């Protein structure tokens, strides 16, 4: 049973960077970016190809993130320079990435058996699972501190203000286009990092592994948002931790669903319904209290 929870914990940590990326685009910049499905697979694809050619996992990491950043930059350029809706820009890049990923990977599935992954770099514990968990935890804690620091810097204030009031930031000498492109690049670099981690965790890369993954990140951010409003938190570090808590809750629900013996084919449906519940419940309760909320963005 504890194995069951630990697996969910491990997977939620691996998907944590992606959830943080979605936090950046959706909450900080107020841009609905769904390049995610493509850049997540891109991260996993680059990982599979480079690890198979005997690269060191730690050397693969920056290459993965760079690839994700390039994907995000494409979405950003299409959105800001061609003035195309962010949602459509993301869909376009995501669609294009499917072919790119297939070309890089060469076939639709590459197993990573007997390969030295990032999770084998340490052997502090006797159990592999604990070793993996430790590596993942160290990475995610580092990321939380980095992202928190970034958002508190002067540049971070500019990022947050751009999503909050773009009219104001222009008059504050901020080039909204550039800062949005940087934000999308960062978010997708984080997403690719999740692809890097998950590919090594599950020991294979599949061309379809990214389909619908954006909803997992979106769900995590929505749970975090519900927690933030409920507990009235403004602290940025806590908000990032809430996103990770959201990711964990999400994986637990999915693991629980599977453990109940539900057909895995229903997993995406369960995911969609779960996200719908998170979004709808606060609204329904508000409506019952008499104050009709305005139709709002996700």
């Amino acid at each position, binding site marked *: 049973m504890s194995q069951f929870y630990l697996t969910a914990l491990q997977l939620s940590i691996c998907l944590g960077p992606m959830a943080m990326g979605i936090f950046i685009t959706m909450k900080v910049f107020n841009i609905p970016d769904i390049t995610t499905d493509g850049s997540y697979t891109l991260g996993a694809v680059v990982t599979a190809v480079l690890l198979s050619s005997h690269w060191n996992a730690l050397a693969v990491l920056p290459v993965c993130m760079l690839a994700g950043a390039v994907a995000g930059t494409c979405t950003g350029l299409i959105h800001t320079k061609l003035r195309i809706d962010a949602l459509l820009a993301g869909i376009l890049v995501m669609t294009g990435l499917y072919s790119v990923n297939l070309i890089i990977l060469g076939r639709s599935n590459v197993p990573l058996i007997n390969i030295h992954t990032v999770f084998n770099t340490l052997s502090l514990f006797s159990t592999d699972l604990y070793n993996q968990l430790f590596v993942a935890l160290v990475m995610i804690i580092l990321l939380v501190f980095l992202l928190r620091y970034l958002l508190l*810097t*002067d*540049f971070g204030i500019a990022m*947050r203000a751009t999503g909050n009031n773009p009219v104001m930031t222009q*008059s504050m*000498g901020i080039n909204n286009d550039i800062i949005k492109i940087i934000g999308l690049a960062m978010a997708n670099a984080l997403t690719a990092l999740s692809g890097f981690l998950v590919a090594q965790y599950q020991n294979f890369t599949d061309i379809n592994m990214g389909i619908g993954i954006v909803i997992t990140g979106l769900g995590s951010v929505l749970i975090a948002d519900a927690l933030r409003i409920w507990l009235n938190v*403004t602290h940025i570090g806590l908000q990032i931790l809430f996103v990770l808590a959201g990711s964990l809750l999400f994986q637990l629900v999915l693991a629980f669903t599977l453990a109940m013996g539900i057909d895995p084919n229903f997993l995406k449906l369960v995911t969609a319904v779960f996200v719908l519940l998170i979004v709808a419940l606060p609204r329904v309760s508000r409506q019952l209290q008499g104050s009709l909320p305005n139709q709002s963005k996700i």
Partner: protein
Amino acid sequence: MISLQKISKIFNKGKVTEVIALNEISLQIHQGEFLVIVGANGSGKTTLLNVMEGSQMPTTGRIEINGQDVTLLPEYKRSRWVARVFQNPHNGTAPDLTILDNFRLAALRTQRKNLTIGINEAFKKKVREKIAGLGMGLENKISQPMGSLSGGQRQALTLLMCVMDDTEILLLDEPTAALDPRSALVVMNLADKLNKDLGITTVLITHNLKDALVYGNRLIQMQEGKIAQDLNTAEKAGLLLQDLYTWFE
């Protein structure tokens, strides 16, 4: 000093809906001047301000700031000289960010936003002191989100934020239109003080003819995209409210 040379702005050029918002306007605004612009709706006041600020580009003409051609510079680059207070109090500040964050951004208006944490105790103290000068009791609320304040409070802070960094030109587009009389007075007096104490060149658009008389040392009336009247300090001082009303008949 800001200089407009034969500035025209034509919307929907060549179409049935063509509008000439600015018609070959030439205008020199000198260092330290407090220029008040009045005019009926649609006379081109706001377009004129937008063209100075860079959020709209003129169709023809040339704009110089301190002798430098800035005609094609976008808004975020012109912010090196120009700060602006919008008509809508919600436009000038980021509501979900704290007052402190908003002021930090304003303090860096003409500078790079680096990857270092700039909000330290010294900065907090500076912001508290500046805000205390308003006498609105906001100096102890600097960690609150900007959105928790009233429109009047936000507008006063927006104006204060304009002078957190080097500012040469202050553009005020009906800054008190959405405010109650008391907040309006605070904002107008602050603008007047900034102009007099710091010598910031100020341009104010207003529909409040009393304000147009009380504040500023030059008065311009706009009509159909042109300057209809241009009164210097002495002429403006001799102007009566009744005379001003006749401009709008």
